[in-house]
């Protein structure tokens, strides 16, 4: 049984039919990448899975249970965390407060303190700045904070929306290294990226989205070799 099973979901914004029957699966321990151009429905797919939007029809099953009608705040304790698009750190809260919000649903003080140390180990920069207000961090540091904050909920499935967006090339490398590290420690990852090149390099499998539909799905290696993917998303003629 797959950890996440999205079955033919249709999502609307008002009258706009944003997702036209998306189906995908993510197995435990995988990194799965969703690639596609602007407006393909990548972010909408993640927002639907995370419960911010309720699909009009179709099912989302997590760990075997249907979660399509759950609202976002109810899914965190079930084991789904999201690193939102544009990072979405709380600009006026301190770094530590941001991280503690990630652990909002938990009441195990010792476990939270332990995980805070773990996050500081992965991102020593955050430890240096822990009393600083998040709005004063650089883009790269905010990305670390958003990722660390999601890890504070001890997720089984981590949804990441464009983690490399707006980052300098060096930081993009570092971000994808972190993604691999997190995955190796046992967290399953569903990754949405415009940077298809990097996304397919770290992923086990990938899906290609176009105007609300999945047009291709395969292992990441096969997708990298696929001529249409090369042409449209990897810039290889």
């Amino acid at each position, binding site marked *: 049984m797959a950890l996440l099973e999205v079955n033919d979901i249709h999502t609307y914004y008002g009258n706009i039919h944003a997702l036209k029957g998306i189906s995908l699966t993510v197995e435990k321990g995988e990194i799965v990448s969703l690639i596609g151009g602007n407006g393909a429905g990548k972010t909408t797919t993640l927002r639907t899975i995370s419960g911010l939007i309720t699909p009009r029809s179709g099912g989302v099953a997590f760990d075997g249970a249907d979660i399509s009608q759950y609202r976002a*705040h109810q899914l965190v304790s079930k084991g789904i965390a999201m690193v939102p698009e544009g990072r*979405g750190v709380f600009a*006026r809260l301190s770094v530590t*407060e941001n991280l503690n*919000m990630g652990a909002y649903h938990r009441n195990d003080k010792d476990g939270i303190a332990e995980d805070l140390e773990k996050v500081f180990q992965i991102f020593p920069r955050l430890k240096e700045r822990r009393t600083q207000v998040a709005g004063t961090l650089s883009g790269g540091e905010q990305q670390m904070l958003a990722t660390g904050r999601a890890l504070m*909920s001890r997720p089984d499935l981590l949804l990441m929306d464009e983690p490399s967006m707006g980052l300098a090339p060096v930081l993009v490398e570092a971000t994808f290294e972190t993604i691999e590290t997190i995955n190796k420690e046992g967290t399953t990852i569903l990754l949405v990226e415009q940077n298809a090149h990097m996304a397919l390099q770290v992923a086990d499998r990938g899906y290609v989205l176009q105007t609300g539909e999945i047009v291709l799905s395969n292992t990441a290696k096969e997708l990298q070799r696929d001529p249409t993917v090369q042409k449209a998303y990897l810039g290889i003629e």
Partner: protein
Amino acid sequence: MSQRFKDIDYIGVVLWLFRTAIVVVVLWGTISKLFLEQGNAYTTIDWIDFLIAGLSQGSLYALIALGYTLVYGVLFMINFAHGEFFMSGTMTATIFVALPLSSSGFLDANPILGMLIIIIVAMLVSVGVALLTERVAYRPLRRAPRLVPLITAIGASFFWQYFFRGLYGSTLIPFPELQVLVGKWTVFGIEILKTRAVVMVASVIMLIGLYIFIMRTKTGTAIRAVAEDKDIAALMGIDVDRTISITFATGAAMAGAAGILYGMVFRQVHFFMGFVPGIKAFTAAVLGGIGSIPGAALGGLFLGLIEAVGPPLFLEGLGIPGAHQLKDVIAFTMLVLVLIFRPQGIVGERLAEKKA
């Protein structure tokens, strides 16, 4: 040269004239009061009295202003029914708790315990009314354009006013006098009415308590997170609706407590008592910078002070009779001036920055 004349910003000039005119009037009034007037000048003691009265009134405004600022912080909505949260708890606690406790002699035998019971009942009723209003009138409109909940809030305000008028009648109801609080205390050689001293101390304790709640507790941090971004807060596992209810409840609890302190000072309650203090506290919240908790506290104190000191200092020297009747004019002139010259308030941030 002619190009430069075309570039004159006429609105800027008018505002500059307006500002200058007000400064001149204020200075003229102040100088003639302090230096030119013969005979009925105030003594230092009188001025200290004005200051204390202002601080005591201002701390009440501050407590009520918190409710406006907290709700605005999370919903960007002016909850005009907040004055009614203040009134509902005060009237209910006065009629059902304070008067019976007073006539049975319990209140004068155990003044601290008695007042605590009265305040807690007032807070509970205010919180109940606030939660009901939020659930029934505001929550269904969460995604409506901003003008809609504003009008609903005005409607809710009228609803509660006339609901409680129907329930308790439209007469003035006396708030019982506490024997221990009759008279004055002397602090550092200054005489202070006991009720005013109690109001100030109680308000400061509550303001500090609220600040710690918002800044140091998990729930308080969640309120600040919801104020910044509701979707992201939900992704953290924060129940946004519940957190908004807690925000309303917190503001209403402060208002309920403020209402009993108000009753102690003014010794009477009635169904319309929430209107003027509500509008004044809203003014205080805007003065301080709406959305900011220290701003609400500072704005409240500032408004109270200017109301008490302003008429004798600025207006009497101009030969205006009955200057004290004009304290509301001063209060609302301050509001207009702040909106014109410093829209972000004393400590507030510019709205544009807030959205960034």
